[in-house]
């Protein structure tokens, strides 16, 4: 029991803080519909991005896997309420140190939509690459590897 506690507490000794690079193209917004409410209009955002990061320093003897996720953050208002929105658009599980060097260009895995159905009131969004270190035993830790320095605009394509 004491051994397990020591192993668990040793999570705090690891202070790696790897950084990477993110580049995001302007988000293209298209009108669409959701599966659940087919009559309701819902705008969808399409994010094309480029990620590069070297996360090998996060892999030590206690690391079981890394969960990486790219998330979009933006603000909106609803009446007098101010809403902070965070949406994960892409994620990846890394189970080996060799796979921890990320060089990936792609688009969002998950639907990027606004709860108010439209992005019109949202000026721009920021993106960050975060990670969750999941140990064999012990405390789960989180960190941020990269963040966009400038806000990314929303772009409405000409549509019919």
């Amino acid at each position, binding site marked *: 029991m004491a051994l*397990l506690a020591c192993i*668990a507490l040793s999570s705090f000794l690891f202070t790696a803080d790897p950084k990477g690079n993110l580049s995001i193209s302007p988000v293209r917004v298209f009108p669409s519909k959701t599966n659940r409410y087919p009559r309701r209009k819902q705008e969808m955002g399409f994010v094309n991005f480029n990620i590069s990061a070297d996360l090998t320093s996060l892999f030590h003897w206690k690391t079981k896997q890394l*969960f990486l*996720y790219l998330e979009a953050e933006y603000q*909106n208002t609803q009446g007098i309420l*101010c809403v902070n*929105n*965070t949406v994960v658009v892409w994620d990846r599980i890394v189970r080996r140190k060799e796979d921890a060097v990320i060089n990936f260009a792609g688009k969002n895995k998950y639907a990027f939509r606004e709860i108010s159905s439209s992005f019109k*009131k949202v000026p721009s969004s920021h993106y960050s690459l975060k990670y969750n270190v999941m140990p064999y035993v012990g*405390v789960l830790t989180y960190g941020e590897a990269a963040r966009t320095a400038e806000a990314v605009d929303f772009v409405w394509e000409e549509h019919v």
Partner: protein
Amino acid sequence: MFGKLGLRVFLLQAMTISSSLASPFMIWKGLSLVTNTESPVVVVLSGSMEPAFYRGDILFLTNPRPESEEPQSLYKTGDILVYKIPGKDIPIVHRVIEAHDFYSEIVPSDADEGVAESTSDTAQDAGRGGSQRSPRSDLKQLMLTKGDNNPVDDLGLYDGLDWLERRHIVGRVRGYLPYVGYISIFLNEARQLLLSRPGAFSLKHILYSKWRAS
């Protein structure tokens, strides 16, 4: 009947037994208070969070109170939460992939260019907002979760709800211990087996005691 010494010994034994029964219960309840969750330790029952969590693993939960002004009381994307849908008994352990945090803040009148100027972008910083923000006890969040091993999000599990709210959350996973939970799963299934076949149990008991006696 006991004799003077016998009574003391008996009382001492009774006290030892009842304190050893009460201690785990007290520890459990104490842990619940400290972590602010109704079940600070849970066992993983399904494979929807593999390869991180397997059936039989143990998870340690916390649930910081919003009134304590801790920035961690805000649930964020990436957090692994245990939640229960009202009407369904089984708690589910999945990861937050969308979070929408509602603050009742008066929007500043000079913010015509958008609300971005009044706050910083991360949900983390929002916790330290200070004077512009209303007390955290009325914090409303709408969340969407998904199991790492599932291809789609949990919307179908919400039993008609469009979003998870703070009131559905039992706690957030902070720590992890593999395999140990199998004891609990095993005990639960053994208990169900015994309860469902009481006749068989007592028959075995009778046979066993006859065998002992002979």
